[in-house]
């Protein structure tokens, strides 16, 4: 894998040589995230979010393992065990708030990562499998986050579980049996909390496995870059280490600054107050909402309000919600444009930004009660969401005239440098770093 000019691993010390000849782990690391992995030199900060997502996953796994040492998965003790963590366990409040807000920050990072992929056409050949594995990770993340939210057994935990599992009962004939199978009873109860705990513990490791597959698949063609032009030679790339480790480390620090600010000073800002009320199966909260990162999908679910074409509204909503994520799997074939980057696709770029706004609107509508004007806004926004991917994207990519592409990454980099400092133009080639030795 990788490019022919990638640096070869040569153990520096006898010890590393000894290890490398028996277990080539140093070689693997060197080729994956070390100097042996050439990366397009022009990738910008939006390309840092993949690494950040990996860090966020590790934070969730580590804090989660710790919380599991103190949590008690039983309807009668789950809520109290969370308060035990918050009040009595040494630094328990810190670890729990890190886990709680870590989930939100994981989604923030992943959503930015997805939109970066959309903007720069990262889903296109030859990276379709990378993209599809990413969609699988997103689905696993949503399932994991949903089940994790149930574990404290607060009001939103219980009613969230009730609402989400009820979605399955919309399926004709087999729906109700499936729902009962999922929750292990007629309503969410002890069987639900124990199975959700078990799955919530194991799914992150499944995600980790898919992440490894994704990185493996990514390392074959390497990253895309803001021009969308393929890497042509050594002058187009820089070794991952030290160039991108240094860059990623800066973004990691900034990420941690934002994460720490929220965790220490606004720890409950992203959560819902009702989840500090113990679950009560006899009293529904005035207004059930999922965690913020699921709101756009919740809005899509609720946008379908009329029975039509022999399918009742509820089932339409469920089909649409799942379709809204699954359609991403087909993106590489819905977009036929040969040009990857939206920097050279002025028409589609406009629609891209409309989509960004559209998803934000969906998120806003998802948080609002089901009344006018939110219902109608949600319907129009949902309409655009599907039209964007299923209708606009195929048509635009067929009719659009892209801007001229640069011949190579190095050329684009030089052109940019000239624009910034027209006097001090270095001769081509001299500005191009050779891989570090």
């Amino acid at each position, binding site marked *: 894998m990788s490019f022919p000019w990638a640096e070869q691993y040569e153990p520096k010390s006898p010890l590393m040589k000894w290890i490398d000849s028996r277990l080539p782990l140093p070689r693997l690391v060197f080729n994956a995230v070390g100097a042996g992995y050439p990366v397009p030199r022009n990738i910008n900060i939006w390309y840092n979010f993949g690494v950040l997502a990996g860090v966020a996953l590790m934070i969730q796994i580590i804090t989660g393992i710790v919380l599991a040492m103190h949590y008690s998965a039983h309807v009668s003790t789950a809520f109290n065990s969370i308060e035990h963590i918050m009040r009595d366990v*040494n630094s328990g409040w810190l670890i729990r708030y890190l886990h709680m807000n870590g989930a939100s920050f994981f989604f923030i990072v992943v959503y930015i990562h997805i939109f970066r992929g959309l903007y720069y056409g990262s889903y296109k050949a030859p990276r379709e499998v990378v993209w599809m594995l990413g969609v699988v990770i997103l689905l696993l993340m949503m399932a994991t986050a949903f089940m994790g939210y149930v574990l404290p057994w607060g009001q939103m935990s219980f009613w969230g579980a009730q609402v989400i599992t009820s979605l399955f009962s919309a399926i004709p004939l087999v729906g109700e049996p499936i729902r009962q199978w999922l929750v292990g009873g007629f309503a969410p109860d002890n069987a639900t909390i124990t199975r959700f705990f078990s799955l919530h513990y194991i799914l992150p490791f499944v995600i980790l496995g898919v992440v490894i597959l994704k990185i493996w698949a990514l390392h074959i063609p390497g990253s895309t870059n803001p021009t969308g032009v393929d890497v042509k030679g050594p002058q187009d790339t820089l070794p991952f280490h030290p160039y991108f480790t240094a860059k990623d480390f800066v973004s990691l620090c900034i990420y941690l600054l934002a994460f720490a600010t929220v965790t220490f000073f606004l720890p409950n800002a992203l959560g819902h107050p009702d989840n500090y009320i113990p679950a009560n199966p006899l009293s529904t909260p005035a207004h059930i909402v999922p965690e913020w990162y699921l709101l756009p999908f919740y809005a899509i679910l609720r946008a379908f309000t009329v029975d039509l074409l022999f399918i009742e509204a509820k089932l339409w909503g469920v089909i649409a919600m799942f379709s809204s994520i699954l359609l991403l799997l087909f993106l590489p074939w819905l977009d036929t444009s040969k040009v990857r980057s939206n920097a050279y696709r002025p028409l589609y770029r406009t629609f891209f930004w409309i989509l960004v706004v559209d998803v934000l609107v969906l998120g806003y509508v998802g948080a609002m009660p089901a009344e006018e004007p939110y219902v109608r806004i949600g319907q129009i926004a949902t309409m655009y969401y599907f039209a964007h991917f299923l209708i606009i994207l195929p048509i635009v990519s067929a009719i659009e005239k892209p801007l001229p592409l640069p011949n190579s990454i190095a050329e684009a980099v030089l052109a940019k440098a000239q624009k910034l400092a027209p006097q001090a133009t270095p001769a081509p080639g*001299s500005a191009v770093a050779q891989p570090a*030795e």
Partner: protein
Amino acid sequence: MATTPDEIEGGDVRRRDFIYIATGAFAAVGAGVVAVPFINQMNPSADVRAMATTEVDISAVEPGMAIKTIWQSKPVFVKRLTAAEIAEANSVDVKTLRDPETLAERTKPGKLEWLVTLGVCTHLGCVPLGAGQGESKGDYNGYFCPCHGSHYDTAGRIRKGPAPLNLEVPPYEFTSDTVIEIG
């Protein structure tokens, strides 16, 4: 025009190295500090620590009787010795014992009749018999551990069997004549 860091020479190298080392050292210290709460969380939590002391009301204990209580999740025997038991304990030549201690050393001054010991055999941690009504008191009229046959005398001292030490006396105090606080 050398551009990769490894090719920069002279004073630059020193300054460059300083920044790299400072960054790395700072990050390493940060990681070390973050590790502290993640390790400390496994220590006993506040609710467990609040159980570090136990108060026992001994007003209802008659001579010759013992009560069992729990202190720090371990059984504790509080035994009120009879005059005969005290005499029996004092009649032993301390030098001949495996773990030489007098009864007076194992009780509070002036409270020779109150023997407070952990109910944990010093051999392998079983709970000895002898505190409850009708339980075997062993060959020395004190406690008897059924696991491997350790016999303790009326002062809770090891006399026979594999246990190496006398039954441990926990730290305790009389807060009044009828209440002791263990821990």
